[in-house]
């Protein structure tokens, strides 16, 4: 069981200047029931780093939306064998997917937006998984989506997915890294990677919602390109900075 975290903000200030490996080491040392979220893309670096820090503590899960590229499935399997680890592949609720497809078809996200499909195929199974753990680790980086989250902390109190009356801690060890740093690590350490990257894919998600990007395009432009980027959250962050 994890130690009580007095203040994630204070710890974030300490960890924010540290390397991803140091942040991971802290996370793995502090929590026993902790999982790494692996999307089948370049966040494989987290698996590699964690494996080198504490192989006996590496617990990984992947969200199988049912719409991933064949290359991504092959890559998840490759990672499982390469590190000789168990990967908990979690699936969406069958009844919810059935209802969506029956009522709106297989490509409703092109007509509405991707949120309904994502909430059923990703957020639902993600929540089920996170209800079983005390902490989780993601590969989210600030440079992935500067429009919506310019300041992802390296550690945060995850209020959205916490069990009732309990806390859930979320670590983003790569928050301060750039895409270039991630790829430098992959190449320097011979880390296996998804073959889609060789075909121009920077960000990899579901097959219908992901496309290769051209040089100079931001990786977000390879996802949900038919939608206009909008700022949906109602942040208080700017106000807090001023106080």
């Amino acid at each position, binding site marked *: 069981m994890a130690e009580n975290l007095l203040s994630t903000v204070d710890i974030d200030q300490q960890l924010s200047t540290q390397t991803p490996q140091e942040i991971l080491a802290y996370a793995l040392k502090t929590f026993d029931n902790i999982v790494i979220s692996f*999307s089948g893309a370049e966040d494989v670096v987290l698996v590699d780093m964690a494996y080198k820090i504490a192989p006996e503590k590496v617990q990984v899960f992947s969200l199988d939306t049912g719409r991933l590229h064949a290359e991504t499935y092959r890559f998840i399997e490759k990672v499982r064998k390469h590190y000789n680890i168990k990967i908990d592949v979690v699936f969406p609720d069958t009844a919810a997917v059935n209802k969506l497809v029956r009522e709106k078809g297989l490509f409703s996200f092109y007509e509405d937006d991707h949120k309904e499909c994502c909430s059923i195929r990703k957020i639902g199974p*993600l929540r089920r998984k996170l209800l079983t753990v005390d902490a989780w680790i*993601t590969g989210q980086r600030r440079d992935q989506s500067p429009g919506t*989250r310019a300041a992802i902390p390296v550690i945060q109190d995850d209020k959205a997915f916490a069990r009732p009356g309990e806390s859930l801690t979320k670590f983003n060890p790569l928050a301060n890294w750039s895409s270039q740093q991630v790829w430098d690590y992959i190449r320097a350490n011979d880390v296996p990677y998804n073959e889609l990257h060789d075909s121009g894919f920077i960000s990899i998600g579901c097959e219908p919602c992901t496309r290769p990007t051209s040089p100079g395009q931001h990786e977000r432009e390879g996802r949900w390109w038919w939608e206009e980027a909008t700022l*949906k*959250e109602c942040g208080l962050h700017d106000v807090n900075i001023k106080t």
Partner: protein
Amino acid sequence: MRITFVKKINLDGSFCKKCADVQQKMDAAGQNDMIDEVLIADERDPSSPGVELASLYNVERAPFFLVEREGEAPEIYTVYFKFVKEVLNQQTKEEDELKEILNDNPDLDFL
């Protein structure tokens, strides 16, 4: 149990979109009677009570609910449907909960 509801007012004086949406849902569900205090986090006034409460509990999203129970640590809820289910003990639809979580955390779709 004491429940405080914090809503944000934008720089232009309007309520934030989600705050207005949550207020509308609470009105429709008759939940306002269960709220002990409503505080405003006014972006134009860093010393407004809602901003101070948000700073105290390191909350970065509006609206939110502060739930205080005697002898227990205060709890913060930033997901309305989670608050309704776990604190008000009322039924919610899972699809509504999941959509709210994704709307509040747009980067989750990157996973």
